[in-house]
């Protein structure tokens, strides 16, 4: 029996007419295109996780970091007596926004335009990359400074800019570590969470020109090295690219939440600012930020408030960039919106609390998910953005323990969406899988009392195999091995319930 399917990219599955397929949803809404961006891995989750689990250093780094952040989050959340009401308000605000997403986006466009900004619409990653590349080219600059942004990671903007001869400089410390190490991000908030301090020191020593050879692995020293390295780049930058945490429709105000001040540098010093934002980031009213700015920092870095939150509306004469472009990105989001159960994944405010509590993420790490959105939220978001067949193993990358739901600041019911996506995946299969054959067989046996008693008696064989241990050995012949390789199969009891009942009532 197998419950961990291979992804479609490894082995294409023929589809029945009318079945949901990668590329479009049943309503005909296109998903994120293949061949661009970072929503699909090269391996299925179980295969990638198997490699990651062998890396003891990775597991130690992740274990230490997630334990620290879990404790910090719990402490600052416990401080807020009305946290649960805040959460429910956040959830309802997001649901209410999604129900009229078109109207809010049109209002946002009107307001941003009225304040001197230019709004662009991108159907997908390819179009967004083209828009940004052309905007940068028009400035004549061949480099851009970047604020950490999930949307631009998702669409692979850096690669697109590089192909056009434009250097994209990541300025968030963790993004810088990933970029200098020619690595990929493994966490939404701390993309270099898989690296420890001495590994980071080695990357800096190797890649930063003129870095002090005596650089220690003291985090403060490492942060100072990054400060020195980027200072001159901030001061000479003419174009910046950012994402957005929120955009207020009624006022046209954009908001970026950050810690280091690299965001402020990018949002303030260059002449031109280009912001790429997923369409689901809009909120209707200014006062809505009051809810989200309480929920996000406490869930994310475990702080009452992050060091810097910047907001701006269009262009402010004499203060900051004098040219502002907002790129509104779909890239599969409308396909997610079409799913009445799955659309809740669009409520995510990218805090990463669900990653930090997830027993699967803590052990496998972010790279195993293959997408820029790892962890529980990634397991529900990535397959929906790409179409479930392109990330078919992700809905199964969970024990369904529910810890992610408990910590989610906007109460996204991630376990229910996971189950929903598993069902969608199973229903899309046209050829029988080992699992469906097994369950069909089981169904026959369980609906026939005589067969069921025979089967129970046959289970006594399991007691023979276990030789007195509480579980069966992991090494069993196929097809049973597909199950026992990753699970403990309990030794069958000496007598079944029915046998015991019969014996007791015979007396």
């Amino acid at each position, binding site marked *: 029996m197998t419950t961990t399917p291979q992804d479609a990219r490894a082995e294409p599955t023929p589809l029945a007419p009318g079945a949901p397929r990668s590329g479009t949803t049943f309503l*005909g*809404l296109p998903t994120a295109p293949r061949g661009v961006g970072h929503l699909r891995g090269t391996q299925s989750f179980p295969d990638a996780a198997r490699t990651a689990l062998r890396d003891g250093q990775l597991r130690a*780094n992740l274990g*230490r*970091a*997630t334990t*620290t*952040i879990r404790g910090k989050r719990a402490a600052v959340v416990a401080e807020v007596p009305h946290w649960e*009401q*805040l959460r429910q308000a956040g959830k309802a605000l997001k649901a209410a926004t999604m*129900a009229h997403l*078109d109207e809010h*986006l*049109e209002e946002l*466009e009107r307001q941003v335009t009225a304040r001197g900004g230019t709004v662009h*619409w*991108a159907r997908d990653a390819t*179009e967004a990359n083209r828009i940004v590349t052309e905007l940068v080219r028009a400035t004549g600059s061949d480099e851009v400074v970047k604020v950490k942004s999930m949307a631009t990671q998702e669409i692979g903007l850096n690669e697109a800019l590089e192909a056009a001869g434009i250097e994209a400089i990541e*300025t968030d*410390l*963790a993004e810088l*570590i990933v970029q200098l190490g020619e690595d990929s991000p493994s966490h939404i908030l*701390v993309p270099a969470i898989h690296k420890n*301090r001495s590994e980071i020191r080695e990357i800096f020593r190797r890649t930063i020109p003129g870095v002090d050879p005596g650089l220690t692995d003291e*985090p*403060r020293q490492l*942060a100072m090295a990054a*400060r020195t390295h980027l*200072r001159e780049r901030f*001061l000479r930058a003419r174009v910046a690219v950012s994402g957005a945490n929120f955009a*207020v429709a009624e006022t046209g*105000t954009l908001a970026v939440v950050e*810690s*280091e*001040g690299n965001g*402020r540098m990018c949002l*303030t*010093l260059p002449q031109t600012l280009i912001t790429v934002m997923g*369409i689901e980031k809009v909120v209707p009213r*200014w*006062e809505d930020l009051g809810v989200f*700015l309480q929920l996000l*920092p406490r869930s994310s870095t475990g*702080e*009452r*408030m*992050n*060091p*810097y*939150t*910047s*907001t*701006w*509306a269009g262009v*402010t004469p*004499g*203060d*900051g960039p004098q040219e502002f472009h907002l790129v509104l990105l779909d890239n599969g989001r*409308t396909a997610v919106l*079409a799913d009445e159960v799955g659309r809740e994944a669009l409520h995510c405010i990218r805090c990463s609390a669900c990653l930090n509590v997830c027993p699967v993420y803590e052990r496998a790490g972010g790279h195993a998910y293959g997408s820029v959105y790892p962890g529980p939220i990634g397991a529900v978001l990535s397959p929906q953005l790409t179409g479930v067949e392109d990330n078919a193993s992700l809905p199964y990358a969970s024990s369904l323990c529910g810890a992610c739901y408990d910590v989610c600041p906007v109460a996204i019911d991630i376990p229910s969406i996971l189950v929903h996506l598993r069902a969608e995946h199973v229903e899309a299969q046209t050829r029988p899988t080992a699992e469906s054959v097994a369950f069909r067989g089981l169904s026959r046996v369980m609906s026939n009392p005589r067969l069921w008693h025979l089967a129970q008696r046959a289970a006594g064989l399991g007691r023979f195999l276990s030789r007195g241990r509480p579980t069966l050995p992991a090494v069993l012949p196929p097809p049973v091995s597909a199950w026992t390789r990753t699970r403990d199969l309990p030794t069958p009891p000496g007598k079944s319930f029915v046998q015991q009942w019969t014996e007791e009532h015979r007396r």
Partner: protein
Amino acid sequence: MSARDEVLGRIRTALGEQRPQVAVPPVPGPRSLAPAELLHLLAERVEDYRATVLRCTPDEVPATVVRGLDLALGAGWEPADVVVAPGVPAAWRPSGAPEDDGRPAVQLAAFAATLTGVATAVAETGTLVLDGSPLSGRRALSLLPDVLVCVVEAAQVVPDVPDALGRLDPLAPLTMVSGPSATSDIELQRVEGVHGPRTLVVVLAG
């Protein structure tokens, strides 16, 4: 069809005819605190970020600003090293400190310290909000020099984030500052001082 019309059309298709009706439940307001408790909470929360808080009466602001600069820059700093937001009252300014004259933003990096007022401050989270007004200064002013000294007056302090948003202009370029610049990117340990000012001094008057 334009990308705009296509994306909007997709949203309408996705949502269908029957759009969900969602009621947003109310959120309880902040805890009620007496004015003295509010200032105490702000001071405690700002200090939690490893910023320096100096409390004083409104009359003592000028002397306290100087004391803050002494602490941050060490005795012997020159008034010419300190740049002042144009709307800061004359009485608060160290004598001889130049005002931001609107020079190209990057040139502000040459100053060692900045003195500004604030638009409002949030007690619960220890947050100062600068709003780009003459009192707060333009955004680059509170960003490039390595030391930031902010004067907060008692009447500017509100209990929580929603109260602050109610007082602010959504169209102004706002910067919410909670402690010195910091990062948690190395092993999720907080380290103060990256690209923004590494030292934050708050002069709390009242």
